[in-house]
């Protein structure tokens, strides 16, 4: 029987009621008295020198309050980068300035040149069209390999080149890997592109800045996954506002997928302008604006080589990647192709020698940063594609080749500097074979062929590293932040609880799942627990939600704080029951003295904490409120095996997903319904990447896919029902809940399964096709078949 409450149950989500009745409170729903509206005039060229920006005509237009240009921000800090990568020669990365509004040059289509503040959004937009910009257009650098050639046009004149860094990992292994590849019985090589994507949460970004002249306090309402991070970055590095005078609120947020982690220019602008004008200033992104101002994801060009011995054991792996940074370094951009990518190259396999080289490159495109998975999908895609190619070259079953090379003993220290605590890759593959009915594939292929369709099966594994991460470790790796999480557990006098968490929910359902944990720990109904998040004014300093970290890190902080609560409550109970602390047990919301029938209800103890008449005042303070900061001891390592079956129309190249199955190991599960939903969403985005989505710039740097008319978002009829299973559970050994994280798995594990399936389908028809770059549009598949 499924549980009906607590850990392992799937209560209906309490946040759904407001979302289903139109009573959510998203940032664009916030309107402050007397607010003005800003419209950003953005560059329509990829690269240019600003000769002059004449705002005089625009300033005289109706309703215009003030027009800001780069000159207004000369004394203001630029947008900071939160991660400094050190290259393979020991030098720190090149780090260009990133002004709030362009100063001197524009570096990508969408770079903001001026900001018009007016009484209405329409007036602001109309006036922006009247600004006269004189621009000396410069050649754009778009292609990464061209950008790093000698003599290439530089995106930043003050840097030595367009190379941000040339990273080697593990550098000491470089020669040994070269030799192992040279000596191998077989080497499979694959060159591929991990296509540039746009996260596209359905809610576009919004920022509302406010200023209270009486208190000197600034407030920013913003669509963020991590309001405390924005407060710190914007306050300390851009605007010079101390935290006690700056409040950042991220209310209901309509999806993030990474793109709402970063500190953006528009947030700083609205906060700055509200103070300058003593008036609230609101910006609502249009979708077209989002395409050219939200940080993009992926965009790697990679060559990977897998060496095998004569018995098909993996002996070495070498990869070389060009990673697009875009025109500026977004908040966590440098970490994505390095520490979130190189460290995952072992995958599920005991390859003894690995070398990863990454060249991060500036181009005249929008900044690229973390998007669901962030480095881990790029690692998984190349690894699982090259393994599949190797199996086909060697004439062995792709699943058998994987099984043969699985890591089977844990903990396992990889040659790329991480230690997997637990996993069971055989079990997830066994489960996958069962739920995907792989033994029935031949019959399904025959049925498809009878209809004139080519059917393919693609299988792959993935490992990911979640719950980022031990602060001292990431500090050594260049992070300019700690990566703990926080929780304050406030117990009220009558026993109800409010948890103030530094995690942030923008679709993940924390308001439902977090109370399940506390309800289990204390033995009270979930509806006695409320979750507060998203407002720096009433939550402890926290690092927010990304990297599948909320439960593993934020949930652990909540557990630690609740443990402190329980310990104190037991002391109070012991005093009232005239027993020793050590003899008090808490079960089902009742404190009992072990071995006796003496007991007290949870509410009696919480009331005593606030009405401390019969209370050990000489030993402990009144009240029942505790805070914990939890710093993880390691990453967590979810893993799984995915299977995709496709049909390819040989006449048109159109690919349809016929079935998709995912067997994941997320460790312990708090809410299976929510976990299923996270996996579904990740699979949907993964199929989107594999078949549909691609962000395209032309050679001049014009963004060709700048709206939903051009950028192919997955729609309901592009996708099937999915079979998902997470019954394989090897609990994490180093966090108190034994949880691993599930938010990104689908987006990581899915793309290689789809591409492997299409290659399988084409090869089944005798086509000599070993790889097609994503997205596998009908045109690309048809060309591959008929090339």
């Amino acid at each position: 029987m499924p549980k009906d409450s607590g850990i392992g149950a799937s209560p209906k989500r309490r946040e759904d009621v407001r979302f289903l009745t139109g009573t959510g409170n998203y940032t664009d729903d916030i309107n402050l008295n007397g607010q003005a509206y800003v419209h950003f005039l953005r560059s329509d060229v990829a690269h240019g020198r600003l000769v002059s920006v004449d705002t005089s005509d625009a300033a005289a237009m109706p309703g215009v309050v003030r027009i800001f240009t780069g000159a207004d921000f000369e004394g203001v800090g630029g947008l900071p980068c939160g991660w400094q990568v050190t290259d393979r020669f020991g030098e720190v990365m090149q780090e260009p300035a990133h002004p709030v509004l362009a100063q001197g040059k524009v570096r990508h289509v969408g770079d903001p040149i001026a900001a018009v503040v007016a009484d209405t959004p329409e007036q602001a937009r109309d006036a922006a069209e009247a600004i006269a910009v004189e621009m000396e257009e410069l050649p754009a650098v778009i292609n990464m390999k061209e950008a790093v050639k000698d003599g290439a046009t530089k995106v930043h004149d003050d840097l030595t080149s367009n190379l941000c860094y040339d990273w080697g990992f593990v550098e000491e292994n470089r020669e040994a890997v070269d030799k192992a590849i040279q000596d191998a019985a077989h080497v499979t090589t694959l060159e591929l592109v991990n296509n540039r994507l746009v996260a596209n949460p359905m809610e576009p970004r919004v920022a509302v800045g406010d200023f209270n002249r009486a208190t000197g306090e600034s407030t920013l309402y913003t669509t963020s996954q991590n309001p405390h991070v924005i407060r710190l970055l914007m306050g300390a590095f851009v605007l010079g506002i101390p935290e006690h005078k700056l409040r950042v609120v991220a209310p209901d947020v309509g999806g993030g997928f990474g793109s709402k982690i970063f500190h953006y220019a528009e947030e700083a602008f609205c906060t700055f302008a509200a103070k300058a004008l003593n008036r609230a200033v609101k910006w609502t992104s249009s979708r077209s604006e989002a395409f050219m101002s939200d940080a993009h994801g992926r965009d790697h060009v990679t060559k990977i080589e897998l060496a095998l011995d004569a018995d098909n054991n993996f002996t070495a792996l070498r990869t070389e990647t060009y990673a697009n940074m875009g025109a500026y370094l977004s908040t966590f951009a440098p970490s994505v192709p390095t520490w979130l990518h190189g460290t995952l190259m072992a995958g599920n396999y005991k390859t003894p020698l690995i070398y990863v080289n990454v060249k991060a490159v500036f181009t005249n495109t929008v900044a690229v940063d973390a998007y669901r998975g962030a480095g881990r999908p790029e690692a998984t895609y190349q690894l699982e594609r090259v393994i599949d190619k190797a199996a086909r070259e060697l004439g062995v079953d792709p699943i058998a080749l994987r099984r043969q090379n699985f890591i089977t003993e844990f903990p396992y220290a990889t040659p790329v500097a991480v230690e997997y605590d637990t996993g069971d890759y055989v079990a997830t593959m066994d489960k996958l074979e069962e739920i995907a009915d792989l033994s029935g594939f031949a019959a399904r292929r025959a049925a498809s062929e009878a209809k004139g369709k080519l059917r393919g099966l693609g299988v792959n594994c993935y490992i990911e590293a979640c719950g980022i991460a031990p602060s001292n470790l990431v500090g050594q790796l260049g992070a300019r932040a700690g990566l703990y999480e926080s929780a304050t557990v406030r117990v009220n006098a009558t026993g109800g609880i409010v948890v103030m968490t530094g995690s942030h929910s923008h679709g993940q359902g924390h308001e439902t799942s977090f109370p399940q944990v506390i309800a289990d720990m204390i033995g009270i109904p979930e509806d006695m627990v409320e979750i507060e998040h998203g407002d720096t004014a009433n939550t402890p300093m926290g690092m927010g939600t990304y990297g599948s970290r909320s439960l593993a890190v934020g949930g652990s902080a909540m557990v630690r704080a609740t443990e402190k609560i329980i310990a104190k409550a037991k002391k109070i109970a012991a005093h009232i029951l005239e027993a020793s602390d050590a003899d008090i047990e808490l079960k089902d919301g009742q404190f009992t003295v072990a071995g006796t029938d003496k007991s007290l209800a949870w509410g009696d103890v919480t009331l005593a904490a606030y009405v401390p008449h019969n209370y050990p005042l000489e030993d402990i303070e009144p009240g029942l409120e505790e805070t914990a900061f939890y710093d993880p001891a390691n990453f967590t390592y979810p893993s799984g095996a995915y299977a995709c079956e496709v049909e390819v129309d040989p006449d048109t190249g159109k690919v349809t997903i016929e079935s998709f199955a995912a067997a994941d190991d997320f460790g312990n599960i708090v809410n299976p319904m929510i976990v299923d939903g996270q996996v579904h969403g990740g699979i949907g985005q993964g199929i989107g990447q594999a078949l549909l989505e691609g962000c395209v710039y032309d050679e001049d740097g014009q963004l060709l896919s700048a709206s939903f008319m051009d950028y192919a978002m997955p729609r309901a009829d592009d996708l099937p029902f999915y079979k998902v299973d997470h019954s394989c559970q090897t609990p994490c050994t180093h966090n108190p809940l034994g949880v691993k994280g599930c938010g990104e798995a689908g987006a990581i594990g899915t793309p290689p399964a789809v591409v492997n399936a299409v290659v399988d389908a084409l090869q089944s028809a005798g086509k000599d096709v070993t790889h097609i770059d994503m997205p596998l549009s009908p045109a690309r598949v048809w060309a591959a078949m008929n090339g």
Partner: protein
Amino acid sequence: MVKVTMTVNGRTASGEVEGRTLLSGFLREELGLTGTHVGCDTSQCGACVVHVDGKAVKSCTMLAAEADGAEIATIEGQAAPDGTLNVIQQAFQDHHGLQCGFCTPGMVMSAAALLKDNPKPSEQEIREYLEGNLCRCTGYHNIVKAIMAASGQDVSAVAAE
């Protein structure tokens, strides 16, 4: 400026709008009905779907002036006065058909229009009908399942709860 009067969720609503004011803007900014969301500027995403005289309409594609005299239904009017969710809303909650909630108002309004015309749609009919409603969170699995359930179909065979 143009004066418009329409019935919104059973109540008369009037306002002065510019000729270019969209129905979505009128609902959100003038009437404060912020449940209708705007997720794009090319009429692709469907977060703004409302019913105009009983038909599903993307309110970002219609001028407020065009809706003069019309009967408008929005997400705010879907639950019963005592707050009880309607069948479709309840099915979305029961089957986890929403995550961030941003596309949800449009999904619910589109689903209502579908079920009015086609009370027992097949999975494929639902998927095709939702062509104009984008969701980035759910991979559509639980949305399709919720709409099937709302139409009274047994969804226990659909993988994963």
